[in-house]
């Protein structure tokens, strides 16, 4: 979708130019500057904001996986939170029970989660999108039940513990240090996915989304690519979950019901379906929304609005309603998400005096 927003006059004269990661030199410099700025962030921000940034990074990686599935392949998963949690438990299990260092446990748990995802995805991926939605719904319930039951793996009702992340004998403690681990994973994941979209496989996924019949006629194996994309989604969910486990150091299955899966969907939809950078924007939006509502309700406390609505006790419900309404509003009014809005703002300034 993003390629259709390139302004007139910006010609690509060879395939090599058409498939670069960054469309222009400026965009590449901006991306590098963004990463450098993030790397400097721990020196300027306090613990609260660092925990926000870490949350955006962790959920952003998981949402990126969902965007590959939802935005690039046109399949839907309602069990993303369960896969995220599976990655978290796997990494906790590997690091604390098997003695695998966290450095290896994170990618390993990504792979294990992808395998588990395929168990649920395989029967559904050969069918239409809505069957995958239903199968992942089943996965959500089955996996959560498994976590509650399997004490050897997840500790059952007792939260599982995970070892802190360490490399070459140096342990990353506290938000300010762990942030660099998350940042590294975010950069690698986002580069990987952007890169993958330039390859044969990436273009095949988009072809499956846009018109699966024509894609099949052109020799694209539908079952293979639908399954692949579901595997990628589960993989990134697992990576995100593993990072979450080593950040929190304890993992409990509480709070990872279907509402959390809806949150992941919200991140992708708000950010923009099929937009890699939009995923981060959407995640930031969804992570910061509850905080913003918290500030708002704090500002309104004691006032007339607060008393009539009973905001103080019902803030969680208001938040859930807000999330739902925002998803619907984006789907109806802005199906391309925040990424599209951002492009329009850029285009406005580019053509400033002649905006039309």
């Amino acid at each position, binding site marked *: 979708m993003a390629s259709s927003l390139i302004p007139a006059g910006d010609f690509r004269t060879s395939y090599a130019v058409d498939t670069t990661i960054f469309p222009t030199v400026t965009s590449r410099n901006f991306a590098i500057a963004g990463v450098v700025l993030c790397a400097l962030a721990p020196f300027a921000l306090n613990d609260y904001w660092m925990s926000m940034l870490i949350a955006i990074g962790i959920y952003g990686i998981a949402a990126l996986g969902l965007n590959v599935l939802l935005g690039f392949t046109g399949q839907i998963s309602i069990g993303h939170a369960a896969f995220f949690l599976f990655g978290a438990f796997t990494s906790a299990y590997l690091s604390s029970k098997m003695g695998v260092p966290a450095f290896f446990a994170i990618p390993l748990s990504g792979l294990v989660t992808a395998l588990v995802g395929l168990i649920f995805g395989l029967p559904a991926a050969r069918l239409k999108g809505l069957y995958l939605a239903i199968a992942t719904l089943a996965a959500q319930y089955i996996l959560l039940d498994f976590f509650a039951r399997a004490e050897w793996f997840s500790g059952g009702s007792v939260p599982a513990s995970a070892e802190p992340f360490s490399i070459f004998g140096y342990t990353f403690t506290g938000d300010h240090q762990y942030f660099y681990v998350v940042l590294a994973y975010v950069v690698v994941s986002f580069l990987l996915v952007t890169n993958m979209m330039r390859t044969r496989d990436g273009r095949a996924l988009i072809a499956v989304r846009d018109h699966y019949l024509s894609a099949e006629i052109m020799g694209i194996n539908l079952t293979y690519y639908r399954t692949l994309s579901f595997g990628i989604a589960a993989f990134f969910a697992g990576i995100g979950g593993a990072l979450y486990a080593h950040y929190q150091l304890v993992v409990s299955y509480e709070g990872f019901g279907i509402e959390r899966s809806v949150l992941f969907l919200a991140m992708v939809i708000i950010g923009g379906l099929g937009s890699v950078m939009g995923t981060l924007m959407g995640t930031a939006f969804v992570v910061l929304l509850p905080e913003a509502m918290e500030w708002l309700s704090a500002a309104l406390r004691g006032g007339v609005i607060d008393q009539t609505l009973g905001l103080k006790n019902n803030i969680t419900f208001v938040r859930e309603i807000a999330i739902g309404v925002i998803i*619907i509003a984006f789907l109806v009014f802005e*199906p391309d998400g925040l990424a599209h809005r951002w492009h329009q703002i850029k285009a406005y300034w580019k053509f400033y005096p002649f905006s039309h």
Partner: protein
Amino acid sequence: MNTQLLIQLLVNGLVVGTLYGVVAMSFVLIYKATQVVNFAQGELLLVGAWVCWALMIKYQVPFYLAMPITMVFMFIFGILVQLVFMRPMIGEPIISVIMVTIALSTVLQAAMKWIFGVNPQPFPQVFASQSVDVLGLQIQTVYVMSLIVSVAMIAGMAWFFQSSKHGLAMRATAFDQQVAQSLGISVKSVFAMSWAISATVSAVAGVVVAVVNGVSSGLSIYGIKVFPATILGGLDSIGGAVLGGIIIGLLENFAQFIDGEYLHWGNLYEVAPFYVLIIILMIKPYGLFGTKDIERV
């Protein structure tokens, strides 16, 4: 082996299964007529049950009046949902439509918690006697009522689709929207009607469940149980949905029996339908009675 318990559980299964069947039927109704996979079906039950509860407790309306008022309310509510949320999504990709219904379920779920609180509320007593004696089994009156209401709704639905003018119009629209339109059927009103009927039927099921178990947000699990039932019966078969619902209800209770007597895993009752769902997707993805999709360009 505890035969008494098994029979009791199977009777439970039949009663609950028929209710699943009714909800699955109203789910299939929407899917067939408008091609929308409704993930907010359980919330329609929830809204119906809460409205009826509020009428009876807050406004002291007797049950025989509260029930019709609830049905009228849900009829209008269904039309409103279709008008406000679903009509803008016509022609959008199916995953967008699915996501709107998911978001809708989040909104309704949270709104109900906001308005009525998170605590389960008991439903006022509707029947004088607690239980009746059927063939030596003690069965709660509400269960008998539930079974009768469910069968009546299924029969009513069957009559509606077989014989009534609106039902025929709906079937024609489900078969081919363009042809239906060219024959003078208003597809728009058929869409609205299907949501209205589905919401009303779901609300009746919701009230029945509420009379048995009380009202709580847990009611919306009936909307989730619809998926194993409809996948088993075939996504676009109304008869299949009813049969699938009954099978899932029986299976749940049978799983509970096996679990309680032999396995002692606990909680098998709740997840068994989802294992069945995955297995059906593996071996017979279009269900028992669903039409196998033949794609044409």
